[in-house]
């Protein structure tokens, strides 16, 4: 087992409910592949540094996962299929930090 952080950017048109729904569906995918979604972090709607597929803004979501590489592979495959996801990045981490990161804190204040 290893720890991963999977960050994805969803299109700005999506509402909070739709984002919750995608997180839920990803959770299902992870559980089917015997991986655990330990924590999620929402960074909210942020300006993108450059346009991605004509989007100027996007909803940032972080999934903190405990599982093996195959589960991540399956998750990334599904992210590529979902047209509402414009960018994703999965990173292997040494441990899972459940404290909110700098970016998460910023959105809570505003």
């Amino acid at each position, binding site marked *: 087992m290893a720890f991963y952080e999977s*960050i994805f*950017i969803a299109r700005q048109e999506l509402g909070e409910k739709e984002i919750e729904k995608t997180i839920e569906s990803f959770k299902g995918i992870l559980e089917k592949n015997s991986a655990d979604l330990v924590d999620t972090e929402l960074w909210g709607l942020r300006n993108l*540094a*450059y346009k991605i597929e004509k989007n100027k803004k*996007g909803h*940032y979501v972080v999934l903190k996962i405990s599982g093996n590489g195959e589960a991540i592979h399956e998750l990334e495959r599904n992210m590529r299929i979902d047209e509402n996801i414009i960018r994703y*990045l999965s*990173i292997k981490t040494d441990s899972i930090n459940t404290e909110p990161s*700098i*970016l998460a804190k910023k959105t809570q204040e505003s």
Partner: protein
Amino acid sequence: MQKDRKNDDNDSSGSKPFFRRKKTCPFSGPEAIVIDFRDTRTLNKFVSERGKIIPARISAVSAPKQRKLAQAIKRARILALMPYLA
């Protein structure tokens, strides 16, 4: 930050030999900053106005930390937290 300090000592007299304070790596030592691709405010200090990564010989970041820093900047670019070109 550390970078600005080098100017303090060399303006006093022209005849004195040019003295430049040795810069140290901001990511090493007891007050080290943690390199994190989410922390764009810190990362922005290590890119030029055009968004290029500043070479370690100018920023005085140690070689292992420069590799970590470059990785972090590239990750921030993928997630559109930082620009590829500005």
